[in-house]
């Protein structure tokens, strides 16, 4: 058995040694990425497919440059496309060694040309799991247990190439799978609202974000808005992640764009489609179109705010209003 990120013992020790007090954790995204992410780390990607992906943090990581990364997630769309695209066009600046995952594509928006390019050329070490397997692995980490029992991936070829173990249940005598805990070095998450200490409110699906925050050694949270602690805690049961599971809090409006963020903006479908159109050239070994995109939108800007500035205000408002229509009963 090998562990990526931290072993359960290491993960416990890291947390024991940490200052877990309620401190002001606001900083810039660049400071957070510099402080908490290192080459070779196992980084958990928050959100689900193109919902609340931590895009701003991914852009910042790409600007920074990292080597030999492992990424862990259940289902990812644009976050992994951006990270994988960076490796595809600039492998000396940004490289991924391994992914532990269940799904890398875009549901209604199609397959990921980036993933196909990297995987079909053997550029990634793969560990396939199911969505529940990966979610349960983060949950085991969050719970401080070395494994959780699940049903999937019994009967599937997933079993052959992953670290799950089948055991006979000592109570029922029937087979059950144990999936090992995941303790990433860092979790990167985007949420709707946080306070200065890192307490987070998530609207809509929480995906596996709370589990990732609890399981990881460090957590970087970007959020649409930071509100005062006293306001955030008026309804404590709204809080999905407690402050002591968070290390950095950065207010980044539209930080998940062009993916969606409940109550704030729906998908920018056209931008996702145009990224894919550019990425498809990779399969013909033509990196220029995608490189041009990164030059314009990531390397050519100082920070995520400048990325958002590249969109016309009317387009940004279109996604905002699309999302407002998604829960009109609230209004």
């Amino acid at each position: 058995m090998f562990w990526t990120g931290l072993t359960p013992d290491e993960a416990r020790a890291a947390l024991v040694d940490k200052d877990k007090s309620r401190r002001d954790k606001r900083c810039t995204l660049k400071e957070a990425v510099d402080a908490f992410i290192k080459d070779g780390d196992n980084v958990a990607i928050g959100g689900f497919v193109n919902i609340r992906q931590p895009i701003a943090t991914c852009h910042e990581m790409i600007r920074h440059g990292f080597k030999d990364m492992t990424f862990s997630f259940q289902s990812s769309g644009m976050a992994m496309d951006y990270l994988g695209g960076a490796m595809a066009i600039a492998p000396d600046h940004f490289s991924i060694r391994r992914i532990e995952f269940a799904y890398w594509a875009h549901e209604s928006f199609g397959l990921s040309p980036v993933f196909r390019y990297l995987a079909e050329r053997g550029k990634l070490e793969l560990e396939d799991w199911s969505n529940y397997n990966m979610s349960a692995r983060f949950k085991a980490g969050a719970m401080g247990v070395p494994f959780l029992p699940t049903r999937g991936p019994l009967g599937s070829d997933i079993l052959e190439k992953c670290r799950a173990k089948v055991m006979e249940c000592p109570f029922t005598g029937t087979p059950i799978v144990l999936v090992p805990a995941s303790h990433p070095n860092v979790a990167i998450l985007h949420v709707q609202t946080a306070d200065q200490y890192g307490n987070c409110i998530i609207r809509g699906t929480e995906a596996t974000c709370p589990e990732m925050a609890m399981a990881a050694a460090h957590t970087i949270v970007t959020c649409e808005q930071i509100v005062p602690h006293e306001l955030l805690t008026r309804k404590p049961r709204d809080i999905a992640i407690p402050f002591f599971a968070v290390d950095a809090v950065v207010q980044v409006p539209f930080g998940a764009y062009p993916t969606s963020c409940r109550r704030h903006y729906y998908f920018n479908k056209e931008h996702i489609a145009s990224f894919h159109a550019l990425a498809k050239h990779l399969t013909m070994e033509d990196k220029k179109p995608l490189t041009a995109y990164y030059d314009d939108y990531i390397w050519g800007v100082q920070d995520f705010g400048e990325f958002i500035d590249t969109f016309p205000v009317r387009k940004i408002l279109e996604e905002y209003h699309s999302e407002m229509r998604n829960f009109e009963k609230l209004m």
Partner: protein
Amino acid sequence: MIIAGTEYTPQEMLVIAGSRVLENGKVVFVGTGLPMIATLLARKTHAPGITAVFEAGAVDPALESGLPFSVGDSRTSSGASYVRGLNSAFEMTQRGFCDFGFVGGAEIDPFGNLNSTMMGKFPEDYMKPATRLPGSGGASDMASSCERTILIMPHERRRFNKKLNYITSPGYLDGSPGARKKAGLLGKGPYRVITTKAILGFDDKTHRMKLLQTMPGETAASVQAATGFELLMDPNITAFDPPTETELRMIREVIDPLGFFVKKPQKAQVLYQF
């Protein structure tokens, strides 16, 4: 607006067939893509009492803001009876709350096992597959834990293979008696396969795929010809009813007016409504 008529696309037929198979009052764990559309159609036609569960954690949303683009998007949360995250959705499924799992796939075998991971030699070429597909997502979990599964996919010979490149989602495994239970899986296994050409079921004893109904324009022979393995034939194969005008209007005007998910016939026009 849309001109409804007798013309319709295979994709529209597929969605309508998927919808009709769903029973009112049941809890359906809805996979992304075609299952979402078919479930929405069923709720808006014959089965308003279906409870939809989405893997990102929403139970029974109102689904009144339009078709979700993702099983986790905001449209699956509004008006829902419960919203947590992926763990909660799959845990409820393991517990037995989901009568049906409704899921698509890229490749299927005679026992209803599904592949959505890779094409190529496994395990040899796992790290460098000929074609890399997205991966399990929640499909493997739905197949492991829902009480029954309904599979929906285009009917192409290359997708119906005697032996899969990779088993992502277990059906009846090797078809032997009690194979699922012996493996530790929950639920009875695949119930129906809905395709562009047919409605298929599984033989109670051998667990092999069996032709039950043919889509308009198809015959038992044409379905078999488009299938890469031998199908069992039900003694009473029937013709599946073509789409009703209501069903087509519902898809074209209410559920997917932009044709983002379901292709319409060329001459069906639509105003920009989104």
